[in-house]
């Protein structure tokens, strides 16, 4: 079997699984769960295999499949792995089995439908990452909404209807703008080159006039910014999180939010380099606002889940900051921060789910001193808290450090050219590390320390299944914290390609941030080790 076939298998396995579900008798919920878990597990193993085979020294697509689909429009079925998506695909496949295993006891209603939805969601998310054709990308992007809508709407909490409507309206609004932009973009690309194509690679080669770029980027950016979410397009997120079942929250925080940042990384910024330069000050400002504003909101929440929901806004602000810095350190940091946030926020939502299953409330005030009653639970909670804070040796530190260093490096160079604003903003972003510690330690402290208190007796500590799920996440957190070298190598060429794409465009002379524009360093320069 060729690697390209394996990649297709990875993509369609969840669909096969979902199709096989009806064959299982309704009463056999255990078989349903086992099947879903097996499918997800296999999918992860195959993805890990592809990840290992992925050659970091090769630029562009690997394991590519390209078939004509709607030739008259220039639409093709094209998927493949590259440095942009390889880590996110791995993350998605990694979280898949954990989501299923985490929901073993939580989901009691319509078990089959639930697993079908989780599998379909997995399919659409992977499709979105893997798609290399804008048309295909858009289809997956839209399709993703449906299973998520159902997961929150059917298995959600009390105010689930409000939450789903808000979630769908927000994202659908963004999607409509994006649809318009996609059509216009294909039309303009055709007008420019005479060739009809939706392939990203072809679109990268088109350069549109600046006004067109501006309009298009505005549409794309709004759609992506809602998904990230960036302040002020974020108010759907806490409601969606709070009402979603644990599995929904984990997928939402773990993978779905990265669609927005991935969209910026793969499409928004590289397709419209001139417009990106115009937008950069605004996006950078919003990123820093998101970091601080999200942290401030997380600080005053009384619902455990809301704290983590708002912290996502703050953490994804770092990702955006790294992306707009256009500095290699910042871009690489942003990619790593995406994966790291997927692990830490996903893990924390799992932990919230586990305590909710036991005590049926998410009110922070109802708890205290869990470190005494649930010691194993508390150790996991503490580790993931520290990872969210960005303590060195955890993945959170790697991401935050590289992003902040990259953003600062870029800002310093602009400062030398006379611009103060980026420097002030990247300096302000560093305050996020203080606020992050404040809200996370407030949460962990109230939950774990103090007088032992739970709203529901008796509570039992984690079962083996739960320990394994969390153990896997913690292993990932430390792997990225202690040895990020390996994943960083896989994405380095893509990060460079992103830089080059940003540096092109009709704006004369390219941006000040082109990689070769760096002034020579004084002594102490370390030799490049990249292949």
């Amino acid at each position, binding site marked *: 079997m060729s690697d390209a076939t394996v990649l297709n298998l990875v993509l369609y396995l969840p669909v096969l699984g979902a199709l096989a579900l009806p064959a299982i008798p309704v009463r056999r919920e255990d078989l349903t769960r086992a099947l879903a878990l097996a499918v997800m597990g296999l999918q992860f193993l195959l993805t890990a295999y592809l990840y290992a085979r992925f050659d970091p020294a090769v630029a562009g697509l690997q394991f590519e499949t390209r078939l004509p689909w709607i030739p008259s429009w220039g639409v093709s079925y094209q998927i493949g792995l590259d440095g942009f998506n390889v880590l996110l695909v791995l993350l998605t496949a990694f979280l898949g089995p954990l989501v299923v295993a985490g929901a073993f006891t939580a989901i009691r209603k319509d078990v089959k439908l639930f697993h079908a939805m989780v599998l379909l969601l997995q399919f659409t998310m992977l499709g979105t990452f893997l798609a290399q054709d804008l048309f295909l990308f858009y289809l997956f992007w839209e399709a993703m909404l449906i299973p998520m809508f159902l997961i929150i709407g059917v298995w959600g909490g009390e105010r689930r209807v409000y939450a789903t409507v808000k979630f769908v309206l927000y994202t659908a609004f963004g999607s409509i703008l994006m649809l318009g932009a996609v059509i216009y973009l294909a039309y303009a690309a055709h007008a420019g080159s005479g060739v009809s194509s939706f392939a990203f690679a072809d679109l990268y080669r088109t350069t549109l006039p600046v006004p067109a770029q501006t309009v298009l980027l505005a549409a794309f950016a709004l759609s992506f910014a809602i998904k990230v979410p960036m302040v002020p397009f974020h108010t759907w997120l806490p409601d969606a999180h709070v009402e979603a079942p644990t599995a929904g929250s984990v997928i939402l925080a773990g993978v779905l939010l990265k669609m927005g940042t991935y969209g910026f990384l793969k499409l928004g910024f590289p397709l419209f380099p001139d417009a990106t330069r115009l937008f950069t000050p605004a996006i950078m400002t919003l990123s820093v606002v998101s970091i601080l504003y999200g942290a*401030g909101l997380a600080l*005053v929440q009384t619902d455990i889940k809301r704290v983590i929901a708002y912290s996502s806004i703050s953490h994804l602000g770092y990702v955006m900051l790294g992306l707009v810095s256009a500095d*290699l350190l910042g871009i690489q940091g942003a990619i790593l921060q995406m994966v790291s946030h997927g692990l830490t926020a996903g893990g924390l939502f799992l932990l919230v789910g586990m305590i909710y299953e036991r005590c049926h409330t998410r009110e922070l005030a109802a708890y205290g*001193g869990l470190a005494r009653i649930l010691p194993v639970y508390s150790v996991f909670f503490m580790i993931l808290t520290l990872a969210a804070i960005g303590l060195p040796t955890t993945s959170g530190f790697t991401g935050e450090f590289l992003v902040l260093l990259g953003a600062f490096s870029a800002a*310093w160079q602009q400062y030398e050219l006379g611009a103060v604003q980026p420097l002030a903003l990247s300096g302000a972003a560093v*305050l996020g590390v*203080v606020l992050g510690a*404040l809200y996370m330690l407030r949460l962990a402290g109230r939950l774990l320390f103090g007088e032992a208190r739970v709203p529901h007796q008796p509570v039992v500590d984690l079962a083996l299944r739960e320990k394994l799920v969390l153990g896997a996440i913690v292993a990932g957190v430390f792997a990225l914290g*202690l040895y990020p070298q390996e994943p960083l190598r896989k994405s380095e060429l893509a990060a460079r390609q992103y830089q080059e794409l940003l540096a092109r465009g009709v704006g004369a002379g390219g941006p000040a941030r082109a990689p070769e524009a760096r002034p020579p360093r004084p*002594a102490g320069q370390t030799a490049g080790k990249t292949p």
Partner: protein
Amino acid sequence: MSHLLVWIVLLPLAGFLFNGLAGDRLGARAVSLVGCGLPIGSFTLTVAGAIALAAAGGEPRVETAFTWATVGDHSFEVAFYLDRLSVVMALVVTGVGSLIHVYSTGYMRDDPGYARYFAYLNLFLFFMLVLVLGRSLLVLFVGWEGVGLASYLLIGFWFQDPEKARAGKKAFITNRVGDAGFLLGMFVLFQAAGTLEMDRVNAVFSTGAPAGFSASLIGVLLFVGATGKSAQIPLHVWLPDAMAGPTPVSALIHAATMVTAGVYMVARLSGIYGQAPEASAVIAAVGVLTALFAATVALTQNDIKKVLAYSTISQLGLMFLALGVGAYGVAVFHLYTHAFFKACLFLGAGSVIHALGGEQDIRRMGGLARRVPTTFATFAVAAAAIAGIPPLAGFFSKDEILWFALASRSGGALWLWALAALTAFLTAFYMARLLWLTFLAPSRVDAETARHVHESPRSMTGVLIALAALSAVGGFVGVPHLLEPLLPLPEVRPGLDALETPLVLLSVLLAVGGVGAAAYVLAAGEDPAEVFRRRFPGLHRLVAGKYFVDEAYERWVTRPLYWVSDRVFLRFSDRRVLDGSLHALAALAERSAARLSRAQTGNLQLYAFLVLAGIAAGLLWSLRHV
């Protein structure tokens, strides 16, 4: 051994993993054996490293463990570095650290969290060694944050008491504020030097700061981090609260080792600070002001550990004073002697608290000299050492600080010396008060407690004796001289050479005078703090209230932060403005839909007309545009 440094670092980590994962199941004996054995192993290896270093004539030893991350041209490596400076630190950390581990086997014997305690203590030692031995500022920062974590966990070790858990959080957050500055300093430094490896950084700065960069800016930003970790004004507020942790923790982390990390960092980067006169002036000023400020507070405290905590802040201030006037080696000298006598004092306090069944208020102590003689004797030696009585260790190091505060050509000044001298006097004074009220004054211990007073087990007294001995003779090791090839002492201002001997005499006089003045008041049966309160009630309130710094932060930082987050961000902006306009939009859509639905009259003719009109409009538009 080719990976000597790696092993020094890894042994305590192995202890952490062992005790953390399996300690509870294997029993106290295994926990003590591993928990103390591995640190002692690290100490032994460090001694071997020191011998090898001496044999190599001080040539630094570099070990690269692995490459953490490579991004473009930048490679961040995890490498360890042993030179004259880091070897002194590593010896102090593993040496005093091992002693305190041993002491803990007695002190924590009956605690249900025994294994967890040793796991945390080993974790601390691991991160502290990463901090000390790291070659790059990034690796140092990993240790820097890591010791902060261990400190957080150990301050809140008895986490069921919300007060203690809160103290841990306060320490972490305050340190994070400093770390934000530290990160910024690191970022600017990275722009300037293109590397974070400290030996290379020092080399880059040896000929002045790179063009377009200010060494003082970098220096001040990094020093912000040091004010957090080393509890200097204005980020000192966490250290007194940190006394909530077990007393051996206060001795190891909050007196002897972790809090000196800021001092070590500045000395490590002397290449930068040597080119940064403004930053150095800031450090000297902050140091001496902190020293004096904390010494005055120490006068008024009645909790035995709080007195020692403020004393630590004060002594750290003196170390920064030395750094600020370019006497890096002298600062490290005081760091080294301070580690002995302050660890001894804290552990002695622990022994007293142990003997009194948890009592910490010196107003309810007294007369313990005969009941716990070993504790008393060792405490007395250490107290005399910190007071600066010759020829004990503290005398040598403090005297040199005073001398360079006045005489250094790089920033020495009369006012620095005067404030430092006043601090030295106050130090002798409050230590005499502490010693008297605890051990010598008539007993104020209640009868029930008094019956149970007992000397501590040998695991504890043995450590006290060892530390007291080091406090007594440690000053004869000329640390500044050993470090001189790496950290040359500053030149002396012209015309001051003749003052050196008279100033030595003056420092002796200050120490003796401080003790004497305290004795004068105490002999009359009065507590000097009481006298102070009676004579100057207003001033006493200010000093005993720790100058109300905590209250100011609460009022001007914490509460506004929560207020803005809650009222402005959450209630106003998120709910009113954003969600409010969304809901308004939704309501509008609903209303217009209701109105539009009136167009659905059921009249077929109207529908047909509308359809035709639509088609016509579409055709017209496409004729115009295509």
